[in-house]
């Protein structure tokens, strides 16, 4: 069951990476497994960065692009979790303080939907967000050098 789930995750990642580079699921599967191994071994879900690094080394896909897909994956995972909570709560009532559970679900729902809307907007209007990022970095004045500004823009946005 575990490996079927990992295979499904691989297929989803392949689907998200297709606009950048089509990588057969057979070749992508070991990269995903290495990443999940990293999540189990290293702290702070460092396996996500590890699998992006391995993908860069093996398939020459830029780390910023694959990390963006990883973040979108997490947003979708969060949304599905919340849907499960919405479905499960009426079926399995929790004794005691229901209000705190309700508050957590409401807060998490708002946060994940806002994140999803932000990503849709970023995907739909990349040039506007590029201009916004440049304007935001411009506000930092002399705090950042030209080189570090270019690096930040290069990491977050690639036109």
């Amino acid at each position, binding site marked *: *069951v*575990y490996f*079927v*789930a990992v295979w*499904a*995750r691989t*297929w*989803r990642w392949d*689907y*998200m*990476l*297709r*606009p*950048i580079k089509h990588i057969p699921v057979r070749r992508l599967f070991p990269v995903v497994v290495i990443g999940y191994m990293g999540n189990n071994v290293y702290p702070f879900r460092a396996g996500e960065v590890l699998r992006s690094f391995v993908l860069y080394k093996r398939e020459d896909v*830029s780390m*910023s*692009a*694959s*990390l*963006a*897909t990883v973040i*979108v*994956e997490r947003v*979708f*995972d969060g*949304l*599905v*979790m919340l*849907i*499960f909570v919405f479905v499960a709560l009426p*079926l*399995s*009532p*929790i*004794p*005691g303080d229901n209000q705190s559970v309700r508050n957590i679900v409401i807060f998490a729902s708002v946060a994940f939907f806002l994140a999803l809307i932000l*990503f*849709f907007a*970023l*995907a*739909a209007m*990349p040039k506007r*967000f*590029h201009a916004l990022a440049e304007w935001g970095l411009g506000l930092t004045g002399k705090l950042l050098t030209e080189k570090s500004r270019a690096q930040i823009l290069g990491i977050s*946005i*690639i036109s």
Partner: protein
Amino acid sequence: LTGLESLRSFRNVLMIFFTSVIIWLLETVKYWFVMHAFNFQRQFFRADADEWRGQSGDDPAVSAGLRGHV
């Protein structure tokens, strides 16, 4: 923006969403199987409120199968 192109198509978003649902259903089945090794006796889709109270007093961890029954 590289990496977010898949979100531009509604069909792609729908596919990613349904795959995510399948992934998490598989994860749920996985944990449901694993919990059976620890005296976990609950239906897959529901746990009745009466079961919460009836079997373990006020300790939801016991009734959820997280601690073994005596």
